[in-house]
């Protein structure tokens, strides 16, 4: 009896870890532009994890990994707006269920609870995460000087696209 329990325990532990999915190549892009100025950036080095048993899902990105078309804009983004030195990462930690992700979105050191529509489809044994949502920059205390207030949108639209592969330790 004891042996059976032990076996079950061992099997269940591998089962638990086998339900985790991971990628280090999540694509994230955002657009905070206005009719006066294109402000777009993307990265393909975001991390995303998903646990199919618990429904837990997490996405994280290094702010300095965002690529802009203009070097100066990239510098301003990191130095003046999101303050990457102080807050190097943005993350989402929450749950997926019924076509939504819900959880804490942390940008610029500020965490807000959000619930946004997302698709998480199983394809060839992988999970493909696709979501798109808007955030209000002021919610995350990203300050925009009045001199450029009409060039930068008060909201940023964010897109996430990630193919999470089965992960085992």
């Amino acid at each position: 009896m004891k042996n059976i329990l032990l076996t079950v325990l061992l099997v269940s532990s591998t089962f638990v870890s086998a339900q985790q999915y991971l990628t280090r190549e999540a694509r994230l892009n955002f657009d905070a532009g206005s009719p006066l100025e294109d402000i777009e950036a993307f990265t393909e080095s975001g991390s995303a994890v998903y646990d199919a048993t618990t429904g837990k899902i997490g996405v994280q990105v290094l702010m300095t990994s965002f690529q802009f078309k203009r070097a100066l804009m990239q510098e301003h983004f990191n130095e003046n707006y999101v303050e990457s030195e102080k807050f190097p990462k943005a993350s989402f930690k929450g749950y997926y269920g019924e076509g939504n992700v819900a959880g804490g979105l942390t940008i610029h050191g500020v965490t807000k609870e959000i619930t946004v529509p997302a698709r998480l489809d199983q394809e060839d044994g992988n999970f493909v995460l696709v979501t798109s949502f808007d955030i209000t920059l002021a919610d995350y205390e990203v300050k925009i000087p009045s001199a450029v207030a009409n060039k930068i949108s008060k909201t940023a639209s964010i897109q996430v696209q990630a193919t999470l592969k089965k992960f085992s330790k």
Partner: protein
Amino acid sequence: MGRLRYIFFLSLSVLLATAQEDLFDLLDEESESTQYTYATFKGTKLLNGQTNETPGKGVLQYIISHRFGSFTDEYLYNFFGLDNAHIRMQLDYGFSDRLNIGIGRSSVLKTSDAFVKYRALRQKTGATFFPFSVTLYSALNYRGARFTDGIDHNTTDRLSYHHQAIFARKFNERLSLILAPSIVHWNLVPGPEDPNDTYHLLIGGRYKLSKRIALTSEYAFSSNRSYGSGATEERFHNPMSVGVDIETGGHVFQFHLSNTRAMSDPLWVAQNPYSAANGSLFLGFNISRVFTVNQ
């Protein structure tokens, strides 16, 4: 049996809990990437000297600089020296994120200059670590002003050079420092005892007061300050300056007070005739504007 079942579910829930904690920890295990330090300085120039920065790839930069007249020279009559301004214009381009080539023209000795700047090493953290940045800089200076010594001079007599290695480190968000040894070569020097090569060491830095405003300062030591036959007194003085950087979008405004008026390399670093101790202080500014011409 009941006890065993209890232990089983307990272990399972502990395992599950660990698995859940581990999940978000996986996100943090991404530090394999290297992060290059950005914005060590606001501008490609500190005051007179260079910083380790170059404009990004495809970026055209225009810098206009003024150095006003001395405070000791009837400064009210000359409106704080503004009536006696010297000027330098610079146009340079970022061929890559590392290579920067530019040209300039200054009213001091009607000088034309050209320079090449290359970011050889960059400060970085993360997967690979390097504590500071190294940028190499070479400037060629052509004196356009007529010689007044009555001798026929070759074109080469008009040339001088400044080669510099700029070591820069961003210590934190506010403080960045520069140490920049350099060598200056003059094809023509005033007298036979004067060295054609002089050595210099620039120290400088910036301290950010806010996101867009920083205090800056620089000072350069010189191996030779007594040019001229048998001169015992200092004919040339170490350049020093203090200033403030103000950044507004694509512009960087640099206002400063210094004991130099020449702006082309190597005139300001190696042949600065003005001494702050004698009251020779000048107001000046550099204003840069960048244009992204090739995305």
